[in-house]
């Protein structure tokens, strides 16, 4: 009997449950989607290195999933609170009819089971379908190919999803029971009083506050813009605080200012149903200012993460291609003691034959007495790299290579060599920050005295002469061969191009060599010691990290987007429950149905729209700021992520606000507003 009643309740209050159900299903499908990442190796051809990244990412997402489940748990509790509120009278009726509290709780519990069970089913199905789309994104992110198109499906993930959500529902049901047991019968039967509205006070102070808030947003942004994003954490942190405080402040004071503005413009205030809409929005914004601020912040975080995350990964990879252009690099460090020995010869002494690995090219690195401090003295504040450099006060001697060595290396990579004139020097660097400074040096035809001889800067190139895990070579001189001969030789660098057919095994082989050989800095063979690093290692370290954070970012981003819209939707629907009389009154005094619907559309539109607008404005300011400040990020990379973000927002944000609107109208209908 109770079971039938519960099932009938769910079916009948489908409008009320619709939004709750949707959120649950989306949550389940997201959970499934991100936890099924590991299953994608079924169809994507990952390399050994990528599999390790995948494993790490999977682990991180597992941890994030726990947090996400807790957040969703809170959301479900909140949604349930709304459902209980709405159905107080019904439960009160059950109790007055003589049903025991336990029985009513059982009805509630059964209802939760039906809805949750259905949501789990639907969510998992959507999740499985979503996984197929997700594998496209994954293959793109990893730069791996999809080998077979087949339906990816994992029983383990399904079991995990069900486990987590069942646990969550049980917790929620317990909280419901606890909350319900605290209701008094009288409370159930009498609808809660609305909090009382008042005219805004201290209008002048608030108007001033509004101006100050907007000003502080502007000052905050100009601080962030003037300070170097990475360098000056205190200044940009202060700027960020000003922006945040200013935004919340302008939201708080802005509601009053807007209301007053409209009231001054009487002809639009006293037009059609405008008074009702404006007053209602003012009331709701005033009441929920904290939620709206948090939602705006979450939306902003989601937008920027989604839009910039992919570009950042692209940027990191673009940078990697520059700082780690070779399959592997081995550096012979004892060139000072053995100036006539090549790296290959030195390695042979340690029973390592470079020819076994593939092709290689050697380049000799010399040391000059010119320090970076002197060379860049004029450009101390040109960029963050030089600022750090000068702040630390380190004195680093600039290295040099011969033009023939350099051109040979370019040839080895299939790049164009340079034609160096006599008494000229070319500059190379792999720090992208430096490009502007180098270009200026070239343009100014700067001359530099190297070991007592004057050279004019002829050209520059952004190139690496060895693999590095981050760009370290601020500048290296490329000098005519005859000039270099007298310099002190520091290192011999061997760059390897591995035989593609056996590359993967070779890397493993190299890493073994490295483990027992290069990584031991004091290892002494007959001739000295070596350092080395493979491209694979660098990629794994760097892209592994960014990929991991990107997944975590997308996951948290989408979940907070869904959470935000759900909260907004629920607040609107709580409102309609308390506003039955209002619509009844409007209807009776002759406001047309069309006008009432228009009012609701405006109300929901603004309520959803303002946080979105705020988030969009801040995102629009932040994105260019980040892109111009982070090297290797550019606007072209942004197109696809922006489209993706836009589509996602249209789907989730648009979908939820539309559904809120239809539910709103539906509830009015069910609440039996006469003449609806």
């Amino acid at each position, binding site marked *: 009997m109770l079971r039938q009643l519960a099932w009938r309740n769910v079916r009948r209050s489908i409008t009320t449950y619709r939004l709750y159900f949707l959120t649950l299903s989306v949550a389940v499908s997201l959970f499934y989607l991100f936890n099924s990442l590991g299953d994608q190796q079924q169809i994507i051809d990952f390399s050994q290195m990528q599999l390790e990244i995948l494993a790490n990412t999977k682990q991180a997402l597992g941890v994030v999933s726990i947090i996400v489940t807790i957040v969703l748990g809170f959301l479900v509790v909140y949604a349930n609170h709304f459902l209980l509120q709405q159905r107080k009278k019904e439960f009160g009726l059950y109790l007055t009819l003589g049903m025991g509290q336990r029985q009513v709780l059982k009805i509630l519990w059964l209802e939760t089971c039906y809805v949750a069970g259905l949501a789990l089913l639907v969510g998992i199905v959507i999740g499985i379908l979503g996984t197929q789309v997700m594998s496209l994104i994954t293959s793109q992110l990893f730069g791996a190919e999809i080998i077979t198109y087949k339906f990816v499906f994992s029983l383990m993930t399904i079991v995990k999803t069900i486990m987590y959500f069942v646990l969550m529902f049980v917790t929620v049901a317990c909280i419901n029971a606890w909350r319900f047991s605290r209701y008094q019968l009288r409370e159930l039967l009498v609808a809660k009083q609305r909090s009382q509205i008042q005219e805004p006070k201290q209008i002048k102070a608030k108007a001033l506050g509004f101006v100050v808030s907007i000003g502080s947003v502007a000052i905050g942004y100009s601080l962030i813009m003037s300070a170097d994003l990475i360098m000056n954490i205190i200044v940009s942190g202060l700027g960020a605080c000003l922006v945040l405080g200013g935004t919340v402040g302008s939201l708080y004071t802005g509601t009053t200012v807007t209301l007053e503005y409209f009231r001054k413009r009487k002809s639009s205030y006293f037009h059609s149903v405008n008074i009702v809409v404006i*007053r209602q929005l003012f009331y709701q914004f005033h009441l929920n200012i904290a939620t709206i601020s948090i939602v705006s912040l979450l939306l902003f975080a989601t937008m920027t993460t989604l839009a910039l995350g992919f570009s950042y990964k692209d940027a990191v990879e673009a940078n990697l291609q520059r700082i780690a252009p070779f399959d592997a690099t081995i550096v012979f460090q004892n060139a000072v003691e053995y100036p006539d020995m090549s790296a290959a010869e030195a390695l042979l002494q340690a029973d390592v034959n470079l020819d076994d690995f593939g092709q290689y090219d050697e380049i000799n690195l010399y040391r000059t007495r010119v320090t970076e401090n002197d060379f860049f003295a004029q450009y101390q504040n040109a960029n963050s790299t030089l600022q750090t450099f000068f702040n630390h006060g380190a004195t680093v001697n600039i290295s040099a290579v011969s033009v023939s060595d350099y051109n040979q290396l370019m040839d080895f990579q299939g790049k164009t060599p340079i034609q160096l004139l006599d008494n000229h020097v070319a500059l190379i660097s792999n720090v992208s920050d430096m490009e502007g400074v180098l270009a200026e040096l070239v343009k100014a035809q700067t001359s530099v005295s190297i070991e007592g001889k004057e050279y004019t800067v002829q050209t520059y190139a952004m190139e690496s002469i060895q693999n590095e895990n981050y760009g370290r070579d601020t500048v290296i001189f490329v000098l005519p061969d005859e000039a270099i001969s007298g310099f002190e030789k520091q290192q011999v660098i061997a760059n390897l191009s591995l035989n593609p057919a056996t590359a993967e095994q070779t890397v493993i082989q190299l890493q073994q060599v490295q483990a027992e050989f290069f990584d031991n800095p004091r290892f002494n063979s007959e001739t000295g010691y070596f350092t080395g690093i493979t491209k694979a290692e660098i990629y794994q370290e760097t892209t592994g990290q960014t990929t991991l954070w990107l997944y975590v970012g997308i996951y948290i981003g989408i979940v907070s987007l869904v959470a935000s819209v759900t909260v907004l939707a629920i607040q609107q629907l709580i409102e309609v429950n308390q506003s039955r009389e209002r619509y009844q009154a409007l209807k009776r005094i002759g406001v047309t149905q069309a006008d009432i619907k228009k009012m609701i559309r405006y109300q929901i539109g603004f309520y959803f729209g303002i946080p979105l607008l705020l988030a969009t404005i801040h995102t629009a300011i932040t994105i260019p700021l980040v892109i111009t400040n982070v090297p290797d990020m550019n606007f072209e990379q942004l197109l696809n992520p922006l489209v993706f973000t836009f589509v996602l927002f249209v789907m989730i944000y648009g979908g939820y606000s539309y559904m809120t609107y239809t539910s709103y109208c539906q509830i009015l209908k069910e609440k039996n507003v006469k003449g609806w």
Partner: protein
Amino acid sequence: MEPLLTVRELEKFYGKNGALSKALDGMNMTIEAGEFVGVMGPSGSGKTTLLNCLATIERATAGSITLNERELTTLKPKELEIFRRDQLGFIFQEFNLIETLTAYENIALALTIQGERVDKIEKKIAQLANQLEITSILTKFPHELSGGQKQRVAAARAVITNPALILADEPTGALDSKSAQKLLQTLTQLNQQLAATILMVTHDPVSASYANRIIFIKDGKVFNEIHRGDQTRSEFFQRIIALSAVLGGSYA
């Protein structure tokens, strides 16, 4: 001249074949312009249904209602909305003021939805508020007002558009006797000074005694009606009590 309101053989049935209940069962009545009519009857007599039908919130099953020479029962939903907006004023037991609007804005709303201009709105409200002595409370929100004040604001909202007919549904139901008296004086004032036509449904003989004419209904039909004529209010009250006793049934 045609009466302002004519109700002819009005029927309103609820339910289906088996469990048919007749809320209105051949109701006939007329109201002249400028009248203040009370409608009384026991619970379940069809008072509220009659009011809802007149208010065009409910559609009659059969019969006709003519107001200002327009037949209401055949109007389309959209025409009804416009009709309700322009021709009718409402006063409800529960005030039905909008909580988020000030008293002034509540009254103004009735005009803004008709597309009235701001300067005219200001002038009209100032004048009416003065007459109804609510000028000092215009800036307050409903929750800051007493029941009596709320109901006078509601009365102002009902009359501000100069409707052909004001429908009042138990307007004193939620008021204490002093506030009720004040409101009834206000209604009388509207009726006499502004020539508003009022139809008031009530179960309270005291309230009813303020009207010029009382229509008693029972079982969905007009049972009797009495005119006040030149009688004093207390004489009229005595007659109402006497007739109520004949009519029997509960008035609560």
